[in-house]
């Protein structure tokens, strides 16, 4: 199934693009999507402990299942305000 991956701020710089579309296997979770991203862009891997995730613009956990066509966002530590 195909997942749209959104990355922001420094993660976007490291991935070279704000939006990627990648295939992941059935039964995938947010973590599966992260692993695919980290395999393709090893520089993002160290962020695993500090990154947050969202699925279809709702906060999610790394254990959250994903479905075909979902939009999965990875959020580095935030700095608004």
């Amino acid at each position, binding site marked *: 199934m195909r997942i749209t991956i959104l990355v922001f701020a420094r993660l976007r710089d490291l991935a070279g693009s704000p939006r990627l579309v990648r295939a992941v296997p059935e039964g995938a979770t947010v973590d599966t999507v992260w692993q695919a991203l980290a395999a393709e862009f090893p520089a993002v891997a160290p962020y695993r402990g500090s*990154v947050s995730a969202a699925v279809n*613009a709702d906060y999610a956990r790394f254990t959250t299942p994903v479905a075909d066509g979902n939009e999965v966002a990875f*959020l580095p530590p935030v*700095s*608004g305000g």
Partner: protein
Amino acid sequence: MPTTLLSITDDPIDMASVVRLVEAGEPAGRFGAVTSFLGIVRGENLGRRVVELEYEAYEPLAIKAFEIISAEVAGHWPTIRLAVQHRIGRLLIGEASIVIAAASPHRAEAFQACRYVIERVKQIAPIWKREVFEGGEAWVEGATADPTDAAAREAAYGRACG
């Protein structure tokens, strides 16, 4: 001029319009206080001379974060009516990045709610700033965004009421 209480904008912030919005739509005389907070771009950070900041947001989730914060405020201070507007894009020193306005019948809860909201925005809103300083630039990375983190929520409440 914002038309909704919780918003993200590319335009310069007009604090007065946000304060008017938070007062609007309620029976005249209900509120006795409006407190507001304006975050502005400081010219120095970590000993570096800042040139400008560039803010970006994951907008649909940022609005949801503001909604979560708004619901938390309603839980702690039921009489509050709240408005939040965050600016994104390039901001120069002295420009406003965020305005928060809290209206309520009495001042104490309005002051507390305003402080609570800025603490929570910094903890959970998917908004990032890149600092351009003399000699370089860097993403600023603060909190890992987790709206369900009870310890973070309690820390924000403690600062608001401290």
